[in-house]
């Protein structure tokens, strides 16, 4: 019995560093890069959606419809396993980045659109009356206020993304969950390894939740009286 406990503790300790390393080298960068690119895409999509151009509106709506209506895992398989059939061969990490970026872009474009539209029309009118162009009004007046509204749902989305990166294991990215699977195959201790991986995800997400709180306080500083 003691031997068994010692063995488990040994596996736990031996696997912690490889798991954490996979988390820091793949999970975190995958999430950060995809979120940064995805937010840019989401912003452009939201602008297209609220623009006066019917064509841009349609493109934006089609993209959101397509991505939201299909499973992320299936999208990743299409990009990594499917596209080589038409001559587009990407390695695993970029495939994952593309898949996640497209998802972050689609879901958060709606968040950003709603946040922009939640800002009182009077803010646009005051900007115009002061001579600001629409672009400048958006940049200096509307977006800073919209961002405050958008922080909670965007943080939600980012935390969701950190966990969704585990799907990249299915297209051979050696992120944290993939490494947990590899160690499990060697040690036959699925409960231990997957719980350990879950614990590290929990730590990552706790850090993010903490940062979200700080960001909310900072962005609401004009509301405290």
């Amino acid at each position, binding site marked *: 019995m003691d031997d068994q406990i010692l063995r488990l503790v040994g596996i736990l300790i031996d696997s912690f560093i490889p798991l954490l390393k996979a988390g820091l080298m793949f999970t975190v960068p995958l999430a950060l890069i995809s979120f940064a690119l995805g937010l840019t895409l989401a912003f452009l999509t939201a602008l297209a959606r609220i623009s006066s151009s019917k064509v841009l509106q349609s493109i934006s709506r089609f993209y959101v419809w397509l991505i939201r209506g299909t499973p992320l895992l299936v999208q990743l398989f299409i990009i990594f396993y499917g596209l080589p059939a038409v001559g587009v061969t990407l390695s695993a990490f970029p495939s994952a980045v593309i898949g996640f970026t497209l998802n972050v872009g689609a879901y958060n474009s709606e968040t950003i659109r709603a946040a922009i539209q939640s800002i*009182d029309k*009077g*803010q646009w*009118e*005051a*900007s*115009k*009356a*002061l*001579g*600001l162009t629409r672009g*400048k009004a958006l940049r*200096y*007046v509307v977006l*800073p*206020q919209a961002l*405050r509204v958008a922080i909670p749902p965007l943080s939600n989305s980012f935390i969701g993304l950190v966990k969704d990166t585990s799907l990249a294991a299915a297209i051979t990215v050696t992120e944290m969950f993939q490494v947990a699977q590899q160690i499990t195959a060697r040690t036959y201790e699925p409960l231990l390894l997957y719980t350990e991986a879950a614990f590290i995800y929990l730590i990552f997400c706790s850090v993010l939740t903490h940062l979200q709180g700080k960001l909310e306080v900072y962005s609401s*500083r*004009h*509301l405290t*009286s």
Partner: protein
Amino acid sequence: MITINNVRKKFGNLEVLKGINLNVKRGEVVCVIGSSGSGKSTLLRCMNTLESVTSGTIHIDGKPLDDQTTKDIGMVFQRFNLFAHLTVLENIMLAPMVVKGESKDKLKENAMKLLRKVGLEQKADAYPNQLSGGQQQRVAIARALAMQPKIMLFDEPTSSLDPELVGEVLEVMKALAEEGMTMLIATHEMEFAREVSDRVIFLDGGIIVEDGTPEEIFENPKHERTKVFLNRMRKSG
């Protein structure tokens, strides 16, 4: 200075302005009175291109209204519309900074000067939601003045204020009028209109029913509709 020629404005099938003709001279203070829905706000909003006119023309110093000429027009709104995420000082500095690209130091000095003018220099670092309605509206006036307009439009500037806060805003406007600013004011403050304006215009159903000096309009209105309106205002006031 302002020439409004046969301006009509339709929202769908509803014609709100039915052919407005109006000339305002430099330095003139004109109060526009009339019941809600008479077209006062719409007229002012058309003059600042917040609404486009359906037909007719508006000229400023002989030039048609466009992005360039509207730079000479400042506007104060009923609901203040201060930028909620910026401090009082930043509210005043934003437009000159991003529209005219002026240097921050110079702007700050000018902004403080404007705040002193509206009596709020001690509130420079406050956010709008920390101010009373009257204070917010005074900041809004300072903000509009920061762009050095030649004409100021006031769209019912005291209508959303608690009664005890109306006076402080009217004081600021009165001082502005005495400095010679050209002003167009849509208002329900009859006492103020009588005291400050050079001319009063009574708007009803989208047309100018009567146009004259405060004495002519208030003491000796010619039209029945003007009399009815003024009587109603006296009763409610």
